[in-house]
């Protein structure tokens, strides 16, 4: 047991790190590695794995000191899947060896991660996935097709769920693996979207060999392990704070103010309604944040994604219409693979098209409404016939 770490202590350690490795004269990666080794990467992680076993809330003090000293960060947007999904799962289910091997290069950004969960036939019903992993000596041999994989072409590793026993009901025959994206059986192909961009990929897996030592959690318990991954995804979507007019309502409000010639009473009424709804959604998110800070997490998080998906779609739809002749144009259809995606970036047409994905990606709005109805309101589940049937006998 380490002595209790408080804010003063983390500040002291941060200053110690800065003194030993002055950012101005230390290489970026070297600094990040030193930060990790000093336990200041994520202070709530265990000692030796980038943390100090300290309360999560102390991270703010570290980040503030480092920002003030102009220290480099690990570019969290570029390695979001590693930080937000792979790391908590490795921490929760990994062996000591796995934690030591993977967490440091993940956090430093030397190794990018991607996620191989969704399949063409398993979207909302993720547990119905068909990618097979068959045991062969000390390895598993994986065959199947995954889809909606962002960063797949840049990734060194993937978190992967695959079916290891088709004779069991669907939730019980899944195992969870760490997949080497450099394996010759991995074929990554860009998946072009309605925006013209290829933000995601399809990943074809043919005879990919994964050593059993890269399995996370017990055989057949992959679904339970994946819940940890997905819960962390939800949290990261719901928690961020936005200023007034911070989201999709910003560009259209600016257009309204700057372009009086576009205004009509019809668009005015719609803009005002949406402005009010966006402001209320902002306040709802702020209230959720205050609840979290006060240690009273509410179920509102499930609703925020629903609200923002609908608002993004309606607001951008209005914006295209408001622009009239200009709304009929589009910036560029050239297929590119963007490094980062900004929903409010580019032009109104892009915002309109891209926002259509907001109600599909990361859980469709239909599934989220089911979750709210059952888990928050306590409404009864629908009769189901897929829970006790062997996976191989399900209709598809």
């Amino acid at each position: 047991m380490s002595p209790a770490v408080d804010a003063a202590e983390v500040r002291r350690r941060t200053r110690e790190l800065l003194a030993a490795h002055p950012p101005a004269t230390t290489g970026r990666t070297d600094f990040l590695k030193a930060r990790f080794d000093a336990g200041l990467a994520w202070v709530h992680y265990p000692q030796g794995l980038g943390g100090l076993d300290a309360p999560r809330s102390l991270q703010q003090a570290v980040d503030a000191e480092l920002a003030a000293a102009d220290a480099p960060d690990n570019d969290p947007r570029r390695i979001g899947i590693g930080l937000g999904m792979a790391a908590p799962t490795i921490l929760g289910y990994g062996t000591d060896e796995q934690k030591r091997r993977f967490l440091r290069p993940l956090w430093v950004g030397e190794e990018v991660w991607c996620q191989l969960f969704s399949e063409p036939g398993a979207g909302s019903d993720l547990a119905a996935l068909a990618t097979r992993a068959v045991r062969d000596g000390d390895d598993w041999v994986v065959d199947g097709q995954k889809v909606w994989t962002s960063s797949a072409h840049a990734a060194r590793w993937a978190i992967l769920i695959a079916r290891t026993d088709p004779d069991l009901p669907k939730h019980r025959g899944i195992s969870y693996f760490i997949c080497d994206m450099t394996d010759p059986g991995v074929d990554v192909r860009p998946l072009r979207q309605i925006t013209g961009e290829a933000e995601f990929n399809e990943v074809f897996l043919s005879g990919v060999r994964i050593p059993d030592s890269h399995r996370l959690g017990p055989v057949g318990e992959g679904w339970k392990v994946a819940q940890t991954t997905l819960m962390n995804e939800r949290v990261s979507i719901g928690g961020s704070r936005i200023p007034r007019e911070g989201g999709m309502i910003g560009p259209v409000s600016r257009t309204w103010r700057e372009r009086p010639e576009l205004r009509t009473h019809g668009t005015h009424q719609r803009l005002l309604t949406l402005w009010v709804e966006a402001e209320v959604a902002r306040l709802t998110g702020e209230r959720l944040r205050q609840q979290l800070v006060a240690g009273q997490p509410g179920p509102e998080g499930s609703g925020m994604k629903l609200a923002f998906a609908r608002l993004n779609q309606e607001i951008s739809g209005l914006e295209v219409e408001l622009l009239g002749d200009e709304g009929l144009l589009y910036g560029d259809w050239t297929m590119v693979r963007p490094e980062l995606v900004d929903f409010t970036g580019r032009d109104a047409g892009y915002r309109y098209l891209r926002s259509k994905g907001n109600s599909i990606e990361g859980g469709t709005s239909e599934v989220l409404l089911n979750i709210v109805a059952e888990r928050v309101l306590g409404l009864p589940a629908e009769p189901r016939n897929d829970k006790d049937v062997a996976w191989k006998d399900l209709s598809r």
Partner: protein
Amino acid sequence: MTAPAQPPATPDLLYSQDEEDLRSAVRALLADRADAPTVIVAAESATPYDQGLWEALATGIGAAGLLVPEKLGGQGASHREAAVVLEELGRTVAPAPYLTSSVVATETLLALTGTGGITPAGDSGPAAALLAELASGSRTAVLAVPFATPPGGAQAALAALDGTVQGIADAAVADVLLVPTAEGLYAVGATAPGVAVEPLVPLDLTRPLAALTLSGAAGTPLAGPDASATAVRRGLLAGAGLLASEQLGIAEWCLAETVRYTRERHQFNRPVGSFQALKHRMAQLWLEVVSARAAARNAADALATGSPDAPLAVAVAQAYCSGVAVHAAEECVQLHGGIGMTWEHPAHLYLKRAKADSIAYGTAGRHREAVAELAELPAP
């Protein structure tokens, strides 16, 4: 005109422990004295108000004086606490002149005292004296303007203490009428000579309306024309802002009751609440209720802290919460099926209250017009 004003400070959108304690006290009282069958029967009677309920709420719990500083005889609390009382009154649609007397009339008078900083008369004039009576719950007063008047729309309807004002909420039970005229604001006793209060038939049976006719009536002058206009505007702004909390209460009850009913009601050998289309509608309603809570809390907090953001916070809350309460009540009736259409089921009381509230202190449309001005999104 390129960026909107950001709120000056982060509002506190949670409920404090004191606020939760106040809620418990009010809820227990209302459960005891204003359950649905009682309210339904009272609604059609000649006296929908329960005097005992009012005394327990206003005086016993001290809710009537929440907005009033202690030195003026009140509880020295704020709009945040009054909003909690209104949530609970909304949940039961109990008839009580709380919004009209303890919020609107009280806030109007507060604007005329030293606290309000408008008149030099300070804390010892007739406004302060009446305020103390309202705060104690011993008397009630209502502002004599039509219930549909938005905060920005209060032109003094009367040139002097002579003529008729239509559609005044809770006028039938008020001891005092605060009458804005072109000459200023007057306090007029409800039973004084030349004062006639004529009940009207309201859509919302739980909040009676009346017409006030003055002919040769005398009143106590409280403020001149300018101070009167400012005070009335402040009273209506507080009313509109806290009405959002009443609307939140209405919506909460409607959702909770609909969830309860659809879990229990079986058709086709299943609880009807297990049908996905109904589940999705109730989930969407839940999201609206959650959002309405944030909007209503924001308005109450802005009023409580005297934030310069208060007019926008109130306009946003009213523009949003009006529709949520109506939507919740309409879904409550629909998802109850036939039983929700009957007089014996309380759903209709909530529908009528929600619909009337959507007009009270200005429709959502009027408040969106205020948003247009305050958020610098001008009309064509």
